[in-house]
């Protein structure tokens, strides 16, 4: 019970701070603290992501950071893939899925480290956007 709340809170904080980390923390949290198997953890993580993404989107949209047209296109274009991914996940054994997920976590960690060590990556906006007052590359609240 409290373990789940702690994982949720931590996942949310990390997502708010870094823009990643909801699902990639929810899944191991559900396995390690709530004892769910890999398939149930992944499925449950997906549902838990929805309210977090909604709240985050509303906040970001207020800052004018959401390209609504592209977001809608991406969202709709991804649905076929998402269905295929779910079918694939359910075709794999929990053990294989778990090991693949662990590899994914290592990749996300490496991506974060690389991004952190190259702080000006992606800072040159190709779209004309007013510069914000904050000089780093963190997304705004």
């Amino acid at each position, binding site marked *: 019970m409290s373990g789940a709340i702690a994982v949720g809170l931590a996942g949310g904080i990390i997502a708010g701070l870094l823009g990643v980390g909801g699902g990639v923390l929810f899944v191991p949290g559900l396995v390690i603290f709530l004892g769910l198997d890999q*398939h149930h953890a*992944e499925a449950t993580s997906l549902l838990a992501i929805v309210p977090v993404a909604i709240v985050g989107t509303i906040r970001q949209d207020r800052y004018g950071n959401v390209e609504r047209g592209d977001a809608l296109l991406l969202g709709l274009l991804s649905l076929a893939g998402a269905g295929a991914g779910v079918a*694939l996940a359910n075709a794999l054994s929990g053990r294989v899925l778990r090991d693949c997920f662990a590899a994914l976590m290592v990749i*996300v*960690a490496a991506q974060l480290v690389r991004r952190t060590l190259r702080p000006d990556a992606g800072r040159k906006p190709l779209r004309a956007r007013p510069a914000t007052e904050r000089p780093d590359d963190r997304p705004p*609240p």
Partner: protein
Amino acid sequence: MSMAAEGAHNRTLKLVAIGSMAGVFSGLFGVGGGTVIVPLLMLWLGYEERMATATSLAAIVFIAAYAAGAQGIYGNVSVPDALEIGLPAVAGVLIGTWLQQRLPARSIALMFAAVLLASAVELVLR
């Protein structure tokens, strides 16, 4: 085809590719897909990081909701567990965005990377 039309065509194709990959990724791993969307929006479409993260988040609403529904058909979704994690996570996002202005993001990113590595080891060894 005019250059502008060709540009728009390429852009749509890139969005199709990013969306499809993110969808498979999200459905397969139970994550949002931001790991795929954010770097590709930056690399292929010239997005700046803030815009990429925000736009990715909006797309994830659709992806995660649809994938959760699909997983529900397989009977894998535990709604009480999702609420137990998802509702505190909403509070966490609000705290995180507030903290963002007050904490050095670099050290937090490195700490989070360490937590991910430790969790990966724990996951494989259990």
